[in-house]
């Protein structure tokens, strides 16, 4: 903390021999680095803002895309991201407590809080791995329609509603149906759609024992498995008509069969990768997700490594011998910056 310096006149302040900003060279350079690094994130978020604003209602809604929790079925909108944000904020707090302990020359305190900070960073990285894998894996997959059609759907109050869908409309399968479909496609099983059901007849799995479930495949060899057809309209997008909320309308049975048979060729997508995704018509959505959260995650990884180095140095008493814990303050600046960026990513990518 500065401000403890004796008052110096203005022309003396900039005439050399002392730090005009009242901080050491290293801390100054850390600030300059952060100011320039923030421009990179600023550029990414600006590009994101332009594309997002430009595509208005076609853009997926964060709370409809990110609503899963590991190991749980059901809808928990944004809870997982909130948890990640909380983890990062807490690790930022433990970092600033390490800095405070350093100001008291409290070696034990610094080690304790730096340790917690590293653990918090690792937890955040782990959460991001799960989120990425969930995003890439997808939750059911979607496809476009080849011709316009009218279907009878059910809204969330179980009221029937007729929906007119244009050709090229984007519709989604429920996760149970989608995963069964994807699994069947991957294994080259026979897929049939009739009586409002998806019927999968497993192919003969002579050479598929690489996956290790050969016995499983044999047991079900000729028995076709049936899954009820269930299609979701407006799964990820915001849709209102006459003041009515038209999100997540479900279509089942014969109506769903009509939609499945109206699938435009080569439009079926499961999850997301760098060339296609199930969440949005625009590929930019997935690409921005990968690049912005990936670039931020890369910063977190660097932060964890640097924090770990400082943790070890503090343990070995390097800073105690040096007489000050300013190094903890410098890496602290970087760590808080990572938290700061996440606050913006959280708002602009997940909330808006």
């Amino acid at each position, binding site marked *: 903390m500065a*401000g403890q310096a004796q008052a110096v006149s203005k022309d003396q302040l900039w005439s050399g021999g002392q730090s005009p900003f*009242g901080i050491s060279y290293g801390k100054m350079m850390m600030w300059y680095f952060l100011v320039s690094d923030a421009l990179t994130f600023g550029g990414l978020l600006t590009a994101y803002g332009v594309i997002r604003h*430009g595509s208005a209602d076609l853009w997926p809604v964060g709370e409809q895309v990110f609503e899963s929790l590991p190991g749980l079925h059901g809808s928990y909108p944004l*809870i997982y991201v909130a948890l990640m944000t909380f983890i990062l904020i807490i690790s930022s707090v433990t970092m600033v407590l390490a800095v405070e302990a350093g*100001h*008291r020359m409290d070696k034990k305190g610094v080690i304790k809080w730096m340790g917690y900070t590293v653990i918090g960073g690792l937890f955040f990285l782990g959460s991001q791995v799960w989120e990425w894998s969930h995003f890439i894996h997808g939750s059911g997959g979607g496809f476009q329609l080849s011709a316009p059609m009218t279907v009878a759907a059910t809204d969330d109050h179980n009221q029937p509603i007729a929906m007119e869908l244009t050709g090229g409309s984007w519709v989604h399968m429920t996760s149970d149906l989608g995963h069964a479909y994807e699994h069947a496609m991957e294994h080259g099983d026979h897929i049939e759609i009739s009586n409002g059901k998806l019927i999968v007849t497993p192919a003969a799995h002579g050479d598929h024992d690489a996956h290790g479930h050969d016995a499983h495949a044999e047991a079900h060899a000729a028995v076709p498995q049936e899954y009820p057809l269930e299609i979701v309209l407006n799964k990820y997008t915001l849709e209102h008509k006459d003041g009515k909320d038209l999100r997540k309308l479900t279509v089942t049975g014969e109506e769903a069969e009509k939609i499945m048979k109206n699938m435009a060729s080569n439009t079926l997508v499961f999850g997301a990768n760098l060339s296609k995704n199930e969440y949005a018509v625009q590929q930019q959505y997935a690409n921005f997700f990968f690049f912005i959260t990936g670039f931020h995650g890369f910063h977190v990884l660097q932060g964890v490594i640097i924090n770990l180095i400082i943790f070890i140095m503090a343990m070995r008493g390097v800073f105690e011998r040096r007489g000050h814990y*300013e190094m903890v303050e410098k890496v602290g600046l970087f760590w808080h910056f990572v938290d700061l960026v996440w606050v913006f990513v959280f*708002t602009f990518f997940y909330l808006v």
Partner: protein
Amino acid sequence: MERDDLIVNDSYSLNARHGEEEGKKIRKKLYMVTAILTILTVFEIFMGVYFKRNGTFTWETIKLLFIVLTLVKAAYIVLIFMHLGDERKNLKYVVLLPYALFILYLIFIGLYEGLSVQHLNNTFR
């Protein structure tokens, strides 16, 4: 070359030391900020999930509130956690002024260029 981060100089941040008493006060302030940040985040989630669905506020109001709350959170992180609030005035300006301008630019480009892209999409799709 002489390393100035090893020189103990009164005007530098190196011996920004404080005792046990002051430490307690600082820690109390930090816990307060933690509570504020947590409450703001929870409120943001609540706004994004429930207020939006129930139509308590319009979407435009919610978006504006998101941006304001984000800036408040950012201010707490930069001024308290990063100790910028305790630094000299000139350093504060070096860091904050460019970003005050940049945020204005970001809002301008997001709205103006975004509308233009939307217009192009609607016209030529």
